[in-house]
């Protein structure tokens, strides 16, 4: 299975999330329905640094979780682009009804993440998500975030399909 990548423009078509809550800049090495890598850059100009905190800007942990959840959504939704069983070419963006894709985005139901090191303006986090197990409409996702080689966060999310 060929690995997929998505540009910001493509992500914006797939996810219903928009400013100020679209927290994924690009992603690559996406194995549809299985795992993938995402990137989020943080600049001093982010809306939350003003308040978090005026003298010491650091990225709120919950927003790192949100980035990881959005990456998870992309990994999950990209199944729609996967090769079907008879091995025909993967569908291209124009052939798929992208609104339908965005509609399927589900919810976070459980979060268990540890934060190891803070993230400052000017840094780029690399996000990893792996859909480890699915039971019914629930998926267990192993997640991790790093800045270069420096671990930032690690843990698991449980997400639910939208009913």
């Amino acid at each position: 299975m060929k690995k997929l990548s998505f540009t910001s423009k493509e992500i914006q078509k797939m996810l219903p999330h928009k400013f100020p809550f679209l927290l994924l800049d690009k992603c690559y090495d996406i194995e549809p329905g299985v795992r993938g890598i995402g990137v989020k850059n943080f600049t001093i100009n982010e809306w939350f640094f003003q308040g978090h905190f005026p003298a010491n800007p650091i990225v709120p942990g919950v927003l790192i979780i949100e980035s990881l959840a959005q990456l998870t959504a992309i990994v999950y939704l990209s199944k729609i682009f996967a090769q079907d069983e008879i091995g025909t070419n993967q569908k291209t963006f124009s052939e798929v009804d992208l609104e339908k894709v965005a509609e399927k985005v589900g919810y976070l139901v459980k979060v268990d993440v540890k934060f190891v090191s803070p993230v400052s303006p000017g840094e780029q986090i690399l996000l990893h998500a792996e859909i480890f197990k699915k039971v019914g409409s629930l998926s267990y996702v192993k997640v991790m975030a790093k800045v270069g080689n420096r671990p930032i966060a690690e843990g698991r999310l449980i997400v639910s399909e939208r009913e």
Partner: protein
Amino acid sequence: MGIEEVKKYIEKRKKLLHEVKELIIERLGLDLIPEEIDDDSPLFGMGLGLDSVDALDLVVGVEDKFGVQIGEGELLAFRSVNSLVDYILNKEGGNEDGTQE
């Protein structure tokens, strides 16, 4: 099996029961100690009252800790701590109801 073997089996089962309870407590962040969890009462619905999100978290925890692979059709193994232990012992080589050969 004679008395001695049964005693050994009981020690093994007691240990597993305790480990499963510890796993449940740790994984799901419950404010309980193992002595406060029944062996034979339901985990979901009534009894401990866990839900489907807890179920998934527990499935992965059990797979990790006890080295078993739980199929989607095998989730009834989770109805109580006792049935989970039966399942784990069974995977090691025994009968479905947990009795050893």
